[in-house]
């Protein structure tokens, strides 16, 4: 039998393992049950003081402890939990020996406030400056903080722990990072470089400065009460996204390798695409051409026509700008048919998991294909009359779903889309 290839002669890339952690819980079972029940993971922040903040709620992961707490350590821990789940499901390799590379989407790393404050408190001098800080930093007392706050630290840990092969790649394409991690894995398998790839995306960065940064850009919802009502994708009264934490992990394999070892195939990554918007640092080009081009590139990469897509897992951040732009661009790609494609935003329930979102939503898309049931967009009580999506509002919907497009758009002109299908085309 010939090598299983797609219509372009490339190896078909399938998913054989998935893991997920969100503010709803750890694991696919728990997440899926709550997601289709329309539960929200958004709550008032208790991890740090909220005095003086305009936005006081988030989708934090508080049921997993890391000590000492840093956002980077939480990102690492939830990535590890999601990866454990994905590997257990896949059954690939053996413990500590994954037979392929690691592609990790992770939030940019920096020294965090608790550690910076710890350093400052050591300086026995009134009105000290940063040179005093520098002189107090060495001598090995803070050596673990060097390792912790290197950008490559999470990938290094995961690569060593799971025994992935070669140089692990840490990447950021802002809110599209999770999709990019999957795309890099797909490309490596299509090139024939690897039979398997571990694609992980993680974000544990709900900390005061991160909240302030997005707040100062007026990107966050300020509808703090009740917190679970804040994230309102496609609603007229939406006012911003809700920051959240999460991790998604996917084991990708060539169809040939997966079938040869008798693995259960959970779905197919049929296509990926990306196209940069050079218009502005935070806003999309008003004509939407880069997003339209991104979706079309993804369809072309999958060798599919728009009418073959029967569900869209939207980026749907609930910022006024995103949802409007997403509707206009998506309808340009899908034409009149758009009113018949059920669209939903997981972010209404789990918030915006930023660096992790592309992978978290890919996992939810694959679960949608598995269960033939589309999770709802909750808080959809006042539909935006200018957005004519068939929004799966408030209640999950049973539907025949064969192909899902999952979209991710981010600051810096990042646009990435994935098409996930149940069976090889």
């Amino acid at each position, binding site marked *: 039998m010939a090598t299983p290839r797609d219509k372009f002669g490339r190896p078909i890339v399938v998913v054989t393992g998935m893991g997920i952690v969100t503010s709803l819980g750890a694991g696919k079972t728990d997440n899926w049950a709550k997601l289709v029940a329309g539960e929200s993971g958004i709550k008032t922040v208790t991890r740090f003081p909220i005095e003086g903040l305009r936005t006081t709620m988030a989708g934090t992961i508080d049921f997993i402890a890391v000590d000492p707490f840093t956002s980077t350590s939480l990102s690492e821990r939830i990535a590890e939990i999601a990866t454990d789940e994905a590997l257990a499901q896949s059954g690939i390799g053996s413990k500590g020996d994954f037979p392929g590379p690691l592609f990790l989407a992770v939030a940019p790393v920096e020294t965090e406030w608790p550690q910076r404050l710890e350093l400052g408190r050591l300086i026995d001098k009134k009105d000290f400056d940063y040179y005093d800080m520098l002189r107090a930093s060495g001598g090995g007392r803070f050596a673990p903080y060097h390792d912790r706050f*290197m950008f490559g630290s999470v990938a290094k840990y995961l690569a060593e722990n799971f025994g992935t092969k070669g*140089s692990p*790649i840490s990447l950021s394409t802002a809110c599209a990072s999770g999709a990019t991690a999957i795309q890099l894995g797909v490309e490596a398998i299509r*090139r024939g470089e690897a039979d398997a790839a571990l694609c992980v995306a993680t974000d544990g960065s709900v900390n005061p400065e991160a909240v302030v940064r997005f707040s100062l850009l007026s990107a966050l919802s300020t509808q703090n009460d009740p917190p679970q009502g804040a994230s309102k994708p496609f609603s007229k009264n939406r006012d911003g996204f809700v920051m959240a934490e999460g991790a998604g992990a996917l084991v990708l394999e060539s169809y040939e390798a997966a079938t040869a070892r008798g693995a259960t195939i959970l779905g197919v990554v049929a296509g990926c695409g990306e196209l*940069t918007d050079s218009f502005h640092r935070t806003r999309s080009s008003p004509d939407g051409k880069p997003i339209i081009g991104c979706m079309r590139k993804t369809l072309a990469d999958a060798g599919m026509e728009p009418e073959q897509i029967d569900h869209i897992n939207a980026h749907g951040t609930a910022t006024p700008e995103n949802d409007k732009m997403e509707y206009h661009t998506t309808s340009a790609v899908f034409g009149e048919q758009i009113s018949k494609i059920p669209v939903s935003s997981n972010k209404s329930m789990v918030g915006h998991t930023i660096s992790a979102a592309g992978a978290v939503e890919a996992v939810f898309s694959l679960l949608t294909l598995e269960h033939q049931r589309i999770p709802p967009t909750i808080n959809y009580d006042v539909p935006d009359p200018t957005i004519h999506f068939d929004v799966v509002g408030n209640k999950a919907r049973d539907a025949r779903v064969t192909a899902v497009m999952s979209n991710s758009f*981010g600051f810096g002109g990042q646009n990435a889309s994935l098409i996930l299908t149940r069976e090889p085309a």
Partner: protein
Amino acid sequence: MTERKEVWITGIGILSSLGEGLDAHWDALNAKRINVDDKRFAPYIVHPLAPVSFDAQIPKKGDQRQMEAWQRIGTYAAGMALDSAGVKGNQEILSRMDMIVAAGGGERDLAVDTAILNADAHGNFSPGFLNERLMSELRPTLFLAQLSNLLAGNIAIVHGVRGTSRTFMGEEASSIDAARIALARIEAGQSDVALVGGAYNGERLDLLVLFEFGDFNLTGEFAPVWARENNSGFALGSAGAFLVLESREHAEARGAKPYAKLSKVVADLAQRRQPGAVTKSLETLWSKLDVDDDVGVVVTGATGAEPVTSEERAFLRQHQGLAVRATGTMFGHTVEAQFPLGVALAALSVSRGALFPPNDPTGLEVEKSDPPTQIVVMGTGHWQGEGMALVEAVK
């Protein structure tokens, strides 16, 4: 698999402590010039960025204001690379040019940080204090000058590079992987033309603090990389280095001339807890390049940090025929920019038919008089990751 495509380096952009552009760098290297500042951050040493007018590559002041120094350095070097490849302003090519940038994060507002830390040390720290100070004192757009992927974002906005945009993070290894993935994509026909590189602002107190946590900074008297055995560490340097890579057929179709060919990029993650692991990993990577020790030249980004520099030295001692050049001596440690800088200098040397002279009192670096046709670029991260590229003359 279809046959791998040959990949050419057709554009080079460098901005560093030694100046800007290929001629300035070639002259500085041949004059063995080193630009260090041992006063500003004394006892720490840095290689400061040479004076530059950013207007030449970033014409809008508004764009410059939206960036911090690391982004300006990178956007400038990227523009030089596009100029050098003859594609600046060529909208047809730019609209499908792929980009992989190796990046860290941007500058902090040290005045805000210092004020908060002092208030805290004096006990003026109510529960909402940090929030209130950050909300009222952080410049709203500073975040965009800090986000790792916004160097690529700025390159897209300023120069119109807008095929795809990916940002790799993770210090030295991120730029090795950027070159590795860009090369693999072009070889496999997944991409025709790509912009690859990185940028670093080494003149940052917060980064000196970060590396001081691990006692990695060079202090006291400056010494070349190979002469730091008794005073190890690196002097951070400011630099941006970008390359335009394209398939030979793509370059020939538009009449572009190559500086050199990028034949291979390999990388790995040695388990450094085991002494000797890096030396062994470098040996394995070397064996994948199929190069001959007799003709070989190595341009290395060796940092001067220990124990890894000694591990790299041990590897080099097993290959006595090699002419070695450590860019860390002349440029300092430019972290994410070091590997593309090495590839840039290798391609420049191949294209000029000469290797720049050694700059090393220890004798590890030796003269090479004949024109180099094969140069291996090495990058060994100060705490993790290692890789190599093979740059060759186009036949």
